[in-house]
Protein backbone atom coordinates (compact mmCIF):
# COMPACT_ATOMS: atom_id res chain seq x y z
CA UNK A 1 0.00 0.00 0.00
CA UNK A 2 1.23 3.41 -0.94
CA UNK A 3 0.52 4.79 2.49
CA UNK A 4 2.92 2.31 4.09
CA UNK A 5 5.65 3.17 1.63
CA UNK A 6 5.41 6.83 2.53
CA UNK A 7 5.34 6.16 6.27
CA UNK A 8 8.64 4.24 6.28
CA UNK A 9 11.70 6.44 6.97
CA UNK A 10 14.14 6.82 4.07
CA UNK A 11 17.00 4.33 4.05
CA UNK A 12 20.19 5.88 5.38
CA UNK A 13 22.83 6.38 2.74
CA UNK A 14 26.13 4.54 3.01
CA UNK A 15 27.90 7.63 4.28
CA UNK A 16 25.24 8.30 6.85
CA UNK A 17 25.57 4.80 8.16
CA UNK A 18 29.33 5.01 8.26
CA UNK A 19 29.20 8.32 10.09
CA UNK A 20 26.73 6.80 12.49
CA UNK A 21 29.06 3.90 13.18
CA UNK A 22 32.00 6.20 13.86
CA UNK A 23 29.87 8.28 16.19
CA UNK A 24 28.82 5.27 18.21
CA UNK A 25 32.40 4.02 18.25
CA UNK A 26 33.72 7.29 19.57
CA UNK A 27 30.92 7.42 22.11
CA UNK A 28 31.89 3.94 23.25
CA UNK A 29 35.52 4.95 23.63
CA UNK A 30 34.52 8.00 25.67
CA UNK A 31 32.36 5.74 27.79
CA UNK A 32 35.42 3.61 28.54
CA UNK A 33 37.51 6.61 29.51
CA UNK A 34 34.66 7.97 31.58
CA UNK A 35 34.34 4.71 33.52
CA UNK A 36 38.09 4.72 34.06
CA UNK A 37 37.96 8.26 35.33
CA UNK A 38 35.19 7.33 37.76
CA UNK A 39 37.23 4.43 39.07
CA UNK A 40 40.20 6.75 39.58
CA UNK A 41 38.00 9.12 41.56
CA UNK A 42 36.61 6.34 43.71
CA UNK A 43 39.90 4.65 44.53
CA UNK A 44 42.92 6.08 46.34
CA UNK A 45 45.86 7.35 44.31
CA UNK A 46 48.02 4.45 45.44
CA UNK A 47 45.74 2.02 43.63
CA UNK A 48 44.44 3.78 40.59
CA UNK A 49 45.31 6.65 38.32
CA UNK A 50 43.09 8.58 35.95
CA UNK A 51 43.45 8.24 32.17
CA UNK A 52 45.17 11.58 31.99
CA UNK A 53 47.68 10.75 34.72
CA UNK A 54 48.42 7.43 33.07
CA UNK A 55 48.88 9.04 29.68
CA UNK A 56 51.22 11.61 31.17
CA UNK A 57 53.30 8.94 32.89
CA UNK A 58 53.49 7.02 29.64
CA UNK A 59 54.62 10.05 27.67
CA UNK A 60 57.18 11.16 30.21
CA UNK A 61 58.72 7.72 30.71
CA UNK A 62 58.57 6.47 27.17
CA UNK A 63 62.11 7.32 26.16
CA UNK A 64 63.78 7.25 29.55
CA UNK A 65 62.23 6.12 32.83
CA UNK A 66 64.49 7.33 35.63
CA UNK A 67 62.61 5.29 38.19
CA UNK A 68 63.60 2.04 36.54
CA UNK A 69 67.32 2.71 36.69
CA UNK A 70 67.44 1.29 40.21
CA UNK A 71 66.29 -2.11 39.04
CA UNK A 72 69.29 -2.91 36.92
CA UNK A 73 67.51 -2.34 33.66
CA UNK A 74 69.85 0.38 32.52
CA UNK A 75 68.97 3.76 31.12
CA UNK A 76 65.81 2.76 29.34
CA UNK A 77 62.26 3.90 28.92
CA UNK A 78 59.03 2.03 28.39
CA UNK A 79 59.52 2.15 24.65
CA UNK A 80 62.82 0.33 24.60
CA UNK A 81 61.58 -2.25 27.04
CA UNK A 82 58.53 -2.85 24.89
CA UNK A 83 60.83 -3.37 21.93
CA UNK A 84 62.57 -6.20 23.78
CA UNK A 85 59.21 -7.78 24.50
CA UNK A 86 58.09 -7.37 20.91
CA UNK A 87 61.27 -8.86 19.53
CA UNK A 88 61.05 -11.98 21.69
CA UNK A 89 57.42 -12.31 20.77
CA UNK A 90 57.99 -12.10 17.04
CA UNK A 91 60.86 -14.59 17.04
CA UNK A 92 59.03 -17.08 19.25
CA UNK A 93 55.80 -16.82 17.32
CA UNK A 94 57.48 -17.11 13.94
CA UNK A 95 59.55 -20.15 14.83
CA UNK A 96 56.96 -21.96 16.91
CA UNK A 97 54.07 -20.98 14.71
CA UNK A 98 55.63 -22.21 11.50
CA UNK A 99 56.57 -25.50 13.11
CA UNK A 100 53.08 -25.88 14.50
CA UNK A 101 51.38 -25.17 11.18
CA UNK A 102 53.46 -27.68 9.26
CA UNK A 103 53.02 -30.41 11.86
CA UNK A 104 49.34 -29.67 12.35
CA UNK A 105 48.37 -29.75 8.69
CA UNK A 106 50.44 -32.84 8.03
CA UNK A 107 49.05 -34.76 10.98
CA UNK A 108 45.51 -34.02 9.84
CA UNK A 109 46.16 -36.33 6.91
CA UNK A 110 48.87 -38.70 8.14
CA UNK A 111 47.38 -40.93 10.79
CA UNK A 112 50.73 -42.14 12.08
CA UNK A 113 51.87 -38.61 12.74
CA UNK A 114 48.53 -37.73 14.26
CA UNK A 115 48.70 -40.56 16.76
CA UNK A 116 52.08 -39.31 17.92
CA UNK A 117 51.34 -35.61 17.90
CA UNK A 118 47.91 -35.48 19.53
CA UNK A 119 48.83 -36.85 22.97
CA UNK A 120 51.92 -34.64 23.17
CA UNK A 121 50.00 -31.54 22.21
CA UNK A 122 47.15 -32.34 24.54
CA UNK A 123 49.57 -32.63 27.45
CA UNK A 124 51.46 -29.49 26.45
CA UNK A 125 48.42 -27.24 26.68
CA UNK A 126 48.43 -23.77 28.15
CA UNK A 127 48.76 -24.80 31.79
CA UNK A 128 51.94 -26.81 31.37
CA UNK A 129 53.51 -24.04 29.32
CA UNK A 130 52.91 -21.65 32.21
CA UNK A 131 54.45 -24.00 34.74
CA UNK A 132 57.31 -24.52 32.34
CA UNK A 133 58.18 -20.84 32.75
CA UNK A 134 59.81 -21.19 36.19
CA UNK A 135 61.37 -24.45 35.04
CA UNK A 136 63.00 -22.84 32.05
CA UNK A 137 64.24 -20.08 34.32
CA UNK A 138 66.00 -22.68 36.44
CA UNK A 139 67.45 -24.43 33.45
CA UNK A 140 68.36 -21.63 31.09
CA UNK A 141 68.69 -18.70 33.41
CA UNK A 142 67.62 -15.12 33.09
CA UNK A 143 68.19 -14.69 29.37
CA UNK A 144 66.10 -13.82 26.32
CA UNK A 145 66.35 -17.43 25.22
CA UNK A 146 64.15 -18.52 28.11
CA UNK A 147 61.28 -16.30 27.08
CA UNK A 148 61.64 -16.99 23.37
CA UNK A 149 61.62 -20.73 24.06
CA UNK A 150 58.46 -20.37 26.11
CA UNK A 151 56.66 -18.37 23.43
CA UNK A 152 57.86 -20.72 20.71
CA UNK A 153 56.65 -23.77 22.61
CA UNK A 154 53.27 -22.19 23.23
CA UNK A 155 52.93 -21.04 19.62
CA UNK A 156 53.83 -24.45 18.28
CA UNK A 157 51.26 -26.20 20.46
CA UNK A 158 48.52 -23.72 19.65
CA UNK A 159 49.21 -23.76 15.93
CA UNK A 160 49.23 -27.55 15.80
CA UNK A 161 45.76 -27.53 17.32
CA UNK A 162 44.46 -24.73 15.11
CA UNK A 163 45.99 -26.13 11.95
CA UNK A 164 44.73 -29.65 12.60
CA UNK A 165 41.26 -28.33 13.10
CA UNK A 166 41.44 -26.04 10.09
CA UNK A 167 42.49 -28.92 7.87
CA UNK A 168 39.70 -31.08 9.28
CA UNK A 169 37.12 -28.35 8.82
CA UNK A 170 37.91 -27.91 5.18
CA UNK A 171 35.08 -29.27 3.03
CA UNK A 172 36.30 -32.70 1.91
CA UNK A 173 34.65 -32.10 -1.47
CA UNK A 174 37.62 -29.95 -2.48
CA UNK A 175 40.13 -32.69 -1.87
CA UNK A 176 37.95 -35.29 -3.51
CA UNK A 177 37.70 -33.17 -6.59
CA UNK A 178 41.47 -32.80 -6.59
CA UNK A 179 41.92 -36.59 -6.47
CA UNK A 180 39.76 -36.99 -9.55
CA UNK A 181 42.34 -34.89 -11.39
CA UNK A 182 45.05 -37.27 -10.29
CA UNK A 183 46.46 -35.15 -7.46
CA UNK A 184 48.51 -37.13 -4.94
CA UNK A 185 49.02 -36.22 -1.28
CA UNK A 186 51.73 -33.68 -2.00
CA UNK A 187 49.64 -31.88 -4.60
CA UNK A 188 46.62 -31.98 -2.31
CA UNK A 189 48.59 -30.46 0.56
CA UNK A 190 50.00 -27.74 -1.63
CA UNK A 191 47.00 -26.83 -3.77
CA UNK A 192 44.04 -27.68 -1.58
CA UNK A 193 44.72 -28.26 2.08
CA UNK A 194 47.06 -25.40 2.91
CA UNK A 195 45.44 -22.65 0.84
CA UNK A 196 41.98 -23.86 1.82
CA UNK A 197 42.75 -24.03 5.51
CA UNK A 198 44.77 -20.84 5.48
CA UNK A 199 42.02 -18.44 6.60
CA UNK A 200 41.33 -20.49 9.71
CA UNK A 201 45.05 -21.05 10.33
CA UNK A 202 45.81 -17.36 10.11
CA UNK A 203 42.86 -16.70 12.40
CA UNK A 204 44.45 -19.05 14.89
CA UNK A 205 47.75 -17.23 14.53
CA UNK A 206 46.09 -13.98 15.49
CA UNK A 207 44.60 -15.58 18.58
CA UNK A 208 47.95 -17.11 19.48
CA UNK A 209 49.63 -13.73 19.16
CA UNK A 210 47.12 -12.16 21.53
CA UNK A 211 47.83 -14.74 24.24
CA UNK A 212 51.55 -14.72 23.51
CA UNK A 213 51.70 -11.07 24.55
CA UNK A 214 50.54 -12.11 27.99
CA UNK A 215 52.86 -15.09 28.13
CA UNK A 216 55.93 -13.06 27.23
CA UNK A 217 55.04 -10.35 29.74
CA UNK A 218 54.46 -13.00 32.39
CA UNK A 219 57.79 -14.66 31.67
CA UNK A 220 59.52 -11.31 31.99
CA UNK A 221 57.87 -10.62 35.32
CA UNK A 222 59.22 -13.96 36.55
CA UNK A 223 62.69 -13.10 35.45
CA UNK A 224 64.29 -11.46 32.44
CA UNK A 225 67.10 -9.07 31.60
CA UNK A 226 64.70 -6.55 30.10
CA UNK A 227 61.20 -6.14 28.78
CA UNK A 228 58.00 -4.40 29.74
CA UNK A 229 57.29 -7.17 32.23
CA UNK A 230 60.34 -6.15 34.18
CA UNK A 231 59.05 -2.58 34.22
CA UNK A 232 55.73 -3.83 35.52
CA UNK A 233 57.51 -5.78 38.24
CA UNK A 234 59.59 -2.81 39.23
CA UNK A 235 56.67 -0.42 39.33
CA UNK A 236 54.66 -2.89 41.40
CA UNK A 237 57.46 -2.99 43.94
CA UNK A 238 57.39 0.79 44.01
CA UNK A 239 53.61 0.78 44.49
CA UNK A 240 53.39 3.21 41.59
CA UNK A 241 49.86 2.92 40.26
CA UNK A 242 50.25 5.40 37.41
CA UNK A 243 53.41 3.74 36.16
CA UNK A 244 51.90 0.29 36.43
CA UNK A 245 48.80 1.34 34.53
CA UNK A 246 50.95 3.07 31.94
CA UNK A 247 52.89 -0.12 31.30
CA UNK A 248 49.75 -2.23 31.10
CA UNK A 249 48.28 0.36 28.77
CA UNK A 250 51.29 0.30 26.51
CA UNK A 251 51.11 -3.49 26.31
CA UNK A 252 47.42 -3.27 25.51
CA UNK A 253 48.02 -0.70 22.80
CA UNK A 254 50.80 -2.78 21.31
CA UNK A 255 48.65 -5.91 21.41
CA UNK A 256 45.76 -4.14 19.71
CA UNK A 257 48.07 -2.60 17.12
CA UNK A 258 49.78 -5.87 16.22
CA UNK A 259 46.40 -7.55 16.05
CA UNK A 260 45.10 -4.97 13.61
CA UNK A 261 48.28 -5.31 11.56
CA UNK A 262 47.86 -9.06 11.28
CA UNK A 263 44.18 -8.64 10.49
CA UNK A 264 44.99 -6.35 7.57
CA UNK A 265 47.84 -8.54 6.37
CA UNK A 266 45.93 -11.79 6.60
CA UNK A 267 42.87 -10.22 5.07
CA UNK A 268 44.93 -9.32 2.06
CA UNK A 269 46.38 -12.82 1.77
CA UNK A 270 43.00 -14.47 1.97
CA UNK A 271 41.00 -11.92 0.08
CA UNK A 272 39.37 -14.70 -1.86
CA UNK A 273 37.43 -15.90 1.17
Amino acid at each position, binding site marked *: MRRDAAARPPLASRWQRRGNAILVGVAGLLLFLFAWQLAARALPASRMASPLTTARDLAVNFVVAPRLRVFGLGRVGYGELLLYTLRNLVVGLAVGGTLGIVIGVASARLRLLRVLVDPIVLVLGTVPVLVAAPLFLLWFGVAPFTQVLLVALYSAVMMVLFSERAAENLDP*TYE*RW*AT*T*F*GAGLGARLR*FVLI*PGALPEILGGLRITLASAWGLETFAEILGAPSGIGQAIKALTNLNNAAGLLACVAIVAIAAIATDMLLLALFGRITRW*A
Partner: protein
Amino acid sequence: MNVGVNTTEPVLSLRGLSHRFVRNDGSEVRALDDVSLDVLPGEFICILGRSGHGKTTLLNAIAGLQPVERGEVHALGRPVRGPGTDRGVIFQRDSVFPWMRVEENVAFGLRVRGLKRRERLGLAREQLARVGLSAVARAWPRELSGGMRARVAIAAVFATDPPILLADEPFGTLDYVTKRQLQAVLRELWHRSGKTVLFVTHDVEEALMLGTRVIVVGNGAIAEDRAVDLPMPRTDDDLASPQGLALRHLLLRHMGLE
Protein backbone atom coordinates in the same frame (compact mmCIF):
# COMPACT_ATOMS: atom_id res chain seq x y z
CA MET B 1 37.75 -38.33 -28.33
CA ASN B 2 37.87 -41.83 -29.74
CA VAL B 3 37.90 -44.70 -27.33
CA GLY B 4 39.34 -47.69 -29.11
CA VAL B 5 38.50 -48.90 -32.60
CA ASN B 6 35.97 -51.53 -31.55
CA THR B 7 32.92 -49.46 -30.61
CA THR B 8 30.97 -52.36 -29.13
CA GLU B 9 33.57 -52.81 -26.35
CA PRO B 10 32.06 -51.35 -23.19
CA VAL B 11 33.94 -48.33 -21.90
CA LEU B 12 32.63 -49.05 -18.43
CA SER B 13 31.51 -52.33 -16.96
CA LEU B 14 30.17 -53.15 -13.53
CA ARG B 15 29.83 -56.65 -12.19
CA GLY B 16 27.94 -57.65 -9.07
CA LEU B 17 28.45 -54.39 -7.20
CA SER B 18 27.23 -54.67 -3.63
CA HIS B 19 27.72 -52.40 -0.66
CA ARG B 20 26.20 -51.88 2.74
CA PHE B 21 26.34 -48.89 5.04
CA VAL B 22 25.93 -48.95 8.77
CA ARG B 23 23.87 -46.07 10.10
CA ASN B 24 24.56 -44.25 13.35
CA ASP B 25 21.91 -46.27 15.12
CA GLY B 26 23.52 -49.52 14.03
CA SER B 27 21.01 -50.51 11.35
CA GLU B 28 22.25 -51.57 7.92
CA VAL B 29 21.42 -49.95 4.62
CA ARG B 30 21.89 -51.93 1.45
CA ALA B 31 23.16 -49.13 -0.78
CA LEU B 32 24.03 -51.33 -3.74
CA ASP B 33 22.52 -54.73 -4.39
CA ASP B 34 24.34 -56.83 -6.99
CA VAL B 35 24.47 -54.17 -9.69
CA SER B 36 25.81 -55.13 -13.09
CA LEU B 37 25.99 -52.78 -16.02
CA ASP B 38 27.71 -52.21 -19.33
CA VAL B 39 28.20 -48.76 -20.76
CA LEU B 40 29.13 -48.26 -24.41
CA PRO B 41 31.32 -45.39 -25.54
CA GLY B 42 29.50 -42.18 -26.38
CA GLU B 43 26.39 -42.91 -24.32
CA PHE B 44 24.77 -40.30 -22.11
CA ILE B 45 23.28 -42.32 -19.28
CA CYS B 46 20.99 -40.63 -16.81
CA ILE B 47 20.79 -42.43 -13.49
CA LEU B 48 17.48 -41.69 -11.90
CA GLY B 49 16.20 -42.63 -8.49
CA ARG B 50 14.78 -41.43 -5.24
CA SER B 51 16.98 -40.01 -2.48
CA GLY B 52 18.85 -42.62 -0.56
CA HIS B 53 18.36 -45.40 -3.07
CA GLY B 54 21.96 -45.70 -4.11
CA LYS B 55 22.54 -43.51 -7.14
CA THR B 56 25.29 -41.44 -5.53
CA THR B 57 26.91 -44.56 -4.08
CA LEU B 58 26.90 -46.07 -7.54
CA LEU B 59 28.51 -43.02 -9.07
CA ASN B 60 31.11 -42.76 -6.31
CA ALA B 61 31.96 -46.44 -6.79
CA ILE B 62 32.57 -45.86 -10.49
CA ALA B 63 34.54 -42.71 -9.71
CA GLY B 64 36.72 -44.69 -7.35
CA LEU B 65 35.81 -42.50 -4.38
CA GLN B 66 33.89 -45.22 -2.61
CA PRO B 67 35.27 -48.70 -2.14
CA VAL B 68 32.61 -51.40 -2.37
CA GLU B 69 32.23 -54.61 -0.42
CA ARG B 70 31.73 -56.85 -3.42
CA GLY B 71 31.91 -56.55 -7.15
CA GLU B 72 34.17 -55.07 -9.76
CA VAL B 73 34.26 -51.90 -11.79
CA HIS B 74 36.26 -51.77 -14.99
CA ALA B 75 36.87 -48.55 -16.86
CA LEU B 76 38.51 -48.72 -20.29
CA GLY B 77 39.37 -52.33 -19.61
CA ARG B 78 41.25 -51.59 -16.40
CA PRO B 79 39.93 -52.29 -12.90
CA VAL B 80 39.01 -49.23 -10.88
CA ARG B 81 41.00 -48.90 -7.67
CA GLY B 82 40.60 -45.24 -6.94
CA PRO B 83 39.97 -41.92 -8.63
CA GLY B 84 41.75 -41.40 -11.90
CA THR B 85 42.16 -38.98 -14.73
CA ASP B 86 40.18 -41.29 -17.06
CA ARG B 87 37.03 -40.47 -15.11
CA GLY B 88 36.25 -36.81 -14.61
CA VAL B 89 33.78 -35.94 -11.87
CA ILE B 90 31.42 -33.02 -11.45
CA PHE B 91 30.19 -32.87 -7.88
CA GLN B 92 26.87 -31.80 -6.51
CA ARG B 93 28.38 -29.43 -3.94
CA ASP B 94 30.53 -26.49 -4.81
CA SER B 95 33.91 -28.02 -5.54
CA VAL B 96 35.46 -25.07 -7.31
CA PHE B 97 38.42 -23.92 -5.16
CA PRO B 98 37.61 -20.51 -3.69
CA TRP B 99 41.29 -19.67 -3.30
CA MET B 100 42.05 -19.92 -7.02
CA ARG B 101 40.87 -17.64 -9.74
CA VAL B 102 38.47 -19.10 -12.28
CA GLU B 103 41.11 -19.77 -14.90
CA GLU B 104 43.44 -21.35 -12.33
CA ASN B 105 40.61 -23.65 -11.30
CA VAL B 106 40.03 -24.73 -14.86
CA ALA B 107 43.76 -25.22 -15.37
CA PHE B 108 44.17 -27.22 -12.15
CA GLY B 109 43.99 -30.70 -13.67
CA LEU B 110 46.53 -29.65 -16.28
CA ARG B 111 48.81 -28.28 -13.60
CA VAL B 112 48.72 -31.59 -11.74
CA ARG B 113 49.66 -33.20 -15.00
CA GLY B 114 52.70 -30.95 -15.22
CA LEU B 115 51.83 -28.54 -17.99
CA LYS B 116 53.61 -25.22 -18.06
CA ARG B 117 51.77 -22.10 -17.01
CA ARG B 118 51.30 -20.52 -20.39
CA GLU B 119 50.12 -23.74 -21.99
CA ARG B 120 47.65 -24.69 -19.30
CA LEU B 121 46.17 -21.22 -19.00
CA GLY B 122 45.73 -21.12 -22.74
CA LEU B 123 43.83 -24.40 -22.71
CA ALA B 124 41.85 -23.19 -19.72
CA ARG B 125 40.78 -20.06 -21.52
CA GLU B 126 39.66 -22.15 -24.48
CA GLN B 127 37.41 -24.18 -22.21
CA LEU B 128 36.07 -21.07 -20.55
CA ALA B 129 35.14 -19.71 -23.95
CA ARG B 130 33.22 -22.91 -24.68
CA VAL B 131 31.11 -22.49 -21.56
CA GLY B 132 30.71 -18.77 -22.08
CA LEU B 133 32.78 -17.53 -19.16
CA SER B 134 35.64 -15.76 -20.94
CA ALA B 135 34.77 -12.48 -19.28
CA VAL B 136 35.33 -13.81 -15.73
CA ALA B 137 38.55 -15.75 -16.28
CA ARG B 138 40.41 -13.72 -13.64
CA ALA B 139 37.54 -13.50 -11.17
CA TRP B 140 37.40 -15.16 -7.77
CA PRO B 141 34.75 -17.91 -7.41
CA ARG B 142 33.25 -15.96 -4.54
CA GLU B 143 32.23 -13.29 -7.02
CA LEU B 144 30.28 -15.69 -9.22
CA SER B 145 26.75 -17.02 -9.04
CA GLY B 146 26.04 -20.70 -8.41
CA GLY B 147 25.31 -21.26 -12.07
CA MET B 148 28.58 -19.69 -13.15
CA ARG B 149 30.50 -21.80 -10.67
CA ALA B 150 28.83 -24.89 -12.14
CA ARG B 151 30.09 -23.79 -15.54
CA VAL B 152 33.59 -23.42 -14.11
CA ALA B 153 33.38 -26.98 -12.77
CA ILE B 154 32.30 -28.23 -16.18
CA ALA B 155 35.07 -26.33 -17.92
CA ALA B 156 37.63 -27.67 -15.42
CA VAL B 157 36.60 -31.26 -16.02
CA PHE B 158 36.55 -30.89 -19.77
CA ALA B 159 39.95 -29.24 -19.73
CA THR B 160 41.66 -32.53 -18.88
CA ASP B 161 39.63 -34.32 -21.54
CA PRO B 162 38.73 -37.51 -19.71
CA PRO B 163 36.95 -40.15 -21.82
CA ILE B 164 34.38 -40.73 -19.09
CA LEU B 165 32.44 -38.02 -17.31
CA LEU B 166 30.59 -38.64 -14.04
CA ALA B 167 28.16 -36.03 -12.82
CA ASP B 168 26.37 -36.20 -9.46
CA GLU B 169 23.29 -33.97 -9.66
CA PRO B 170 25.48 -31.04 -10.72
CA PHE B 171 22.54 -28.74 -11.40
CA GLY B 172 20.49 -29.79 -8.39
CA THR B 173 20.83 -26.54 -6.48
CA LEU B 174 20.21 -24.21 -9.40
CA ASP B 175 17.07 -22.44 -10.45
CA TYR B 176 15.05 -23.72 -13.39
CA VAL B 177 16.30 -21.28 -16.00
CA THR B 178 19.97 -21.68 -15.09
CA LYS B 179 19.49 -25.42 -15.01
CA ARG B 180 18.06 -25.51 -18.52
CA GLN B 181 20.89 -23.31 -19.79
CA LEU B 182 23.54 -25.53 -18.25
CA GLN B 183 21.88 -28.67 -19.54
CA ALA B 184 22.21 -27.20 -23.02
CA VAL B 185 25.88 -26.34 -22.40
CA LEU B 186 26.67 -29.84 -21.18
CA ARG B 187 24.78 -31.48 -23.99
CA GLU B 188 26.61 -29.40 -26.57
CA LEU B 189 30.00 -30.20 -25.07
CA TRP B 190 29.16 -33.89 -24.88
CA HIS B 191 27.96 -33.98 -28.45
CA ARG B 192 31.12 -32.39 -29.78
CA SER B 193 33.51 -34.44 -27.68
CA GLY B 194 31.99 -37.90 -27.95
CA LYS B 195 32.59 -38.61 -24.31
CA THR B 196 30.68 -41.14 -22.27
CA VAL B 197 28.61 -39.47 -19.59
CA LEU B 198 26.93 -40.86 -16.49
CA PHE B 199 24.62 -38.26 -15.03
CA VAL B 200 22.88 -38.78 -11.71
CA THR B 201 19.65 -36.89 -11.18
CA HIS B 202 16.35 -37.08 -9.37
CA ASP B 203 14.67 -34.89 -11.97
CA VAL B 204 12.63 -36.89 -14.49
CA GLU B 205 12.47 -34.05 -17.00
CA GLU B 206 16.24 -33.56 -16.83
CA ALA B 207 16.81 -37.27 -17.40
CA LEU B 208 14.55 -37.29 -20.43
CA MET B 209 16.09 -34.11 -21.81
CA LEU B 210 19.68 -35.26 -21.63
CA GLY B 211 19.93 -39.02 -21.77
CA THR B 212 20.39 -41.52 -24.57
CA ARG B 213 19.64 -44.10 -21.95
CA VAL B 214 17.93 -43.96 -18.59
CA ILE B 215 18.63 -46.26 -15.65
CA VAL B 216 16.39 -46.17 -12.61
CA VAL B 217 17.97 -47.23 -9.32
CA GLY B 218 15.64 -48.46 -6.60
CA ASN B 219 16.78 -49.87 -3.26
CA GLY B 220 20.30 -50.25 -4.56
CA ALA B 221 19.33 -52.29 -7.60
CA ILE B 222 18.60 -51.43 -11.21
CA ALA B 223 14.85 -51.25 -11.57
CA GLU B 224 14.73 -50.07 -15.13
CA ASP B 225 17.19 -49.71 -18.01
CA ARG B 226 15.71 -48.05 -21.09
CA ALA B 227 17.09 -46.48 -24.21
CA VAL B 228 15.63 -43.06 -24.89
CA ASP B 229 14.70 -43.18 -28.57
CA LEU B 230 14.00 -39.51 -28.91
CA PRO B 231 15.83 -37.27 -31.39
CA MET B 232 18.97 -35.35 -30.36
CA PRO B 233 19.15 -32.34 -29.91
CA ARG B 234 15.98 -32.67 -27.88
CA THR B 235 13.21 -30.11 -27.60
CA ASP B 236 10.27 -29.89 -25.25
CA ASP B 237 8.08 -31.02 -28.14
CA ASP B 238 10.04 -34.25 -28.37
CA LEU B 239 9.30 -34.88 -24.73
CA ALA B 240 5.61 -34.29 -25.44
CA SER B 241 5.51 -36.89 -28.19
CA PRO B 242 3.67 -40.19 -27.45
CA GLN B 243 7.00 -41.95 -26.97
CA GLY B 244 8.23 -39.22 -24.67
CA LEU B 245 5.08 -39.22 -22.60
CA ALA B 246 5.06 -42.99 -22.28
CA LEU B 247 8.63 -42.91 -21.04
CA ARG B 248 7.82 -40.08 -18.68
CA HIS B 249 4.93 -41.98 -17.12
CA LEU B 250 7.11 -45.03 -16.75
CA LEU B 251 9.79 -43.06 -14.94
CA LEU B 252 7.29 -41.24 -12.75
CA ARG B 253 5.87 -44.58 -11.73
CA HIS B 254 9.31 -45.76 -10.74
CA MET B 255 9.78 -42.61 -8.70
CA GLY B 256 6.55 -43.31 -6.88
CA LEU B 257 4.78 -40.29 -8.26
CA GLU B 258 2.12 -42.19 -10.22
